[in-house]
């Protein structure tokens, strides 16, 4: 039996599948509780349904990209382990890096044919402990941290206004700016400072998706097509990704 055949054994699928199923149940429980709390608060169910529909459509394309991450890692780590890692806790952009760093530390690489049965459990454990701190911090400090923020937010609100919403918008603007700035920097100086020879595809994708979003917003706000809001992010992403395909060929 080859290494990959061993890593794809039914019993390993079962171990990983049970954990994925547990997390799925947790999601359903949180969802039902939030829905009930919303109703108890007197929230309009149409708004809650809208949040659910928009989040579902939003998540399809990134999920397909995550599936590709599973495929990419399956050549060296088998299918069940990357499936588990990327279904829960793992992040597409971290997982591959951690996996290759972990493999390197074990004296092998993630290239096909390099993995050994003896190294796999150590690599899997290292992947687990490298990306578990968010969950630990959340379990230990979530309540205290949010209470503290809530108290300072209440003080601000009493003083007049409340800065919380603006702070979240500003944080998001900062986050998006960091990523777009990195695409610009990569294009201008990616292959040497001011050589303008780096890849420009991400910039074109950003521009196309932003333009598509502007069109969706126009129809939603000016033409009364508010239903488009539920699909505007997914639609804009699709157009941006289509532009990437066109540039690639």
């Amino acid at each position, binding site marked *: 039996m080859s290494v990959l055949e061993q890593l794809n054994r039914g019993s390993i699928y079962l171990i990983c599948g049970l954990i994925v199923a547990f997390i799925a149940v947790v999601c359903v429980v949180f969802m039902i509780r*939030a829905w009930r709390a919303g109703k108890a608060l007197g929230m309009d169910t149409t708004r809650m349904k*809208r*949040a659910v529909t928009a989040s579902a459509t939003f*998540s399809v394309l990134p999920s397909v990209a995550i599936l590709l991450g599973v495929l990419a890692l399956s050549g060296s780590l088998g299918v069940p382990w990357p499936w588990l890692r990327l279904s829960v806790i793992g992040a597409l952009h971290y997982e591959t890096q951690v996996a290759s760093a972990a493999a390197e530390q074990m004296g092998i690489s993630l290239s096909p044919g390099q993995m050994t049965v003896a190294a796999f459990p150590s690599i899997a*454990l290292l992947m687990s402990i490298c990306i578990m701190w968010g969950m630990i911090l959340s379990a230990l400090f979530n309540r205290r941290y949010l209470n503290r923020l809530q108290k300072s937010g209440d003080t601000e609100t009493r003083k007049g206004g409340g800065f919380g919403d603006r702070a979240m918008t500003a944080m998001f603007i900062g986050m998006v700016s960091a990523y777009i700035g990195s695409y*610009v920097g990569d294009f201008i100086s990616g292959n040497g400072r001011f050589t303008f020879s780096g890849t420009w595809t991400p910039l074109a994708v950003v521009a196309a998706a932003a333009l598509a*979003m502007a069109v969706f917003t126009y129809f939603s706000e000016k033409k009364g097509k508010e239903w488009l809001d539920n699909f505007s*992010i997914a639609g804009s992403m699709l157009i941006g990704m289509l532009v990437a395909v066109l540039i690639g060929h």
Partner: protein
Amino acid sequence: MENGKSYEAYLKSTHRLGRIVSVVSLVLLVGAPFAIGAVLGTQPDLGAVARSFLSVGLVWTVSSVVEFLVYTPMLGAGGSYLAFITGNLINMKVPCAMNAKELVNAKSGTAENEVIATLSIATSALVTIVVLAAGVALLVPLQPVLQNPVLAPAYANVVPALFGAMAYKYYRKDPKLAMIPLAAMMILFTLVPSLTSSTSFMIIPSGALAIGLSWLKYRRETKGAAGK
């Protein structure tokens, strides 16, 4: 008042449940390599794992602290417990929750925002679980489509596509404010291109700059309103 009390109770039980499921998930995820090791007939080399963690793991530990501090206020209690368990925060959960919040016009730090963020992240995580489960089940027939070289650039650019759409949505709220962190990041990444490998860390100075500018504007406006 009644609503306030029941919401307090909901929040309290959410924290309790969140802590329990975080600990259980942690045990399951750390325990899985040992269970798989038992199937394979070999166990993790704990000494090697500890040494490797010291050399490669600390980077991600710092990153986790940053993620916890930045994303928890955005996602609320239920949303952040779920998001840290289900992962893929920057490329999916955080933008997804922010989008849902915008669509239903929920204000940060409110009970409504707590409910909407939890619904959004739970839905998003379930969609990923279903897509991945279906993808794994149909791996053989789907492989030629997913690994088609024609589609490769599309999948490689999911994050730029996401941030392009989100940029329009957020920049138009305050274009003047947005231009400053954007210009600062463009200059910084151009002058120090090696920073592109640490983009997730650069969210901190960029976000701090945007929040600082927003705070100054807010103070100016509230002082102006108080003066009238």
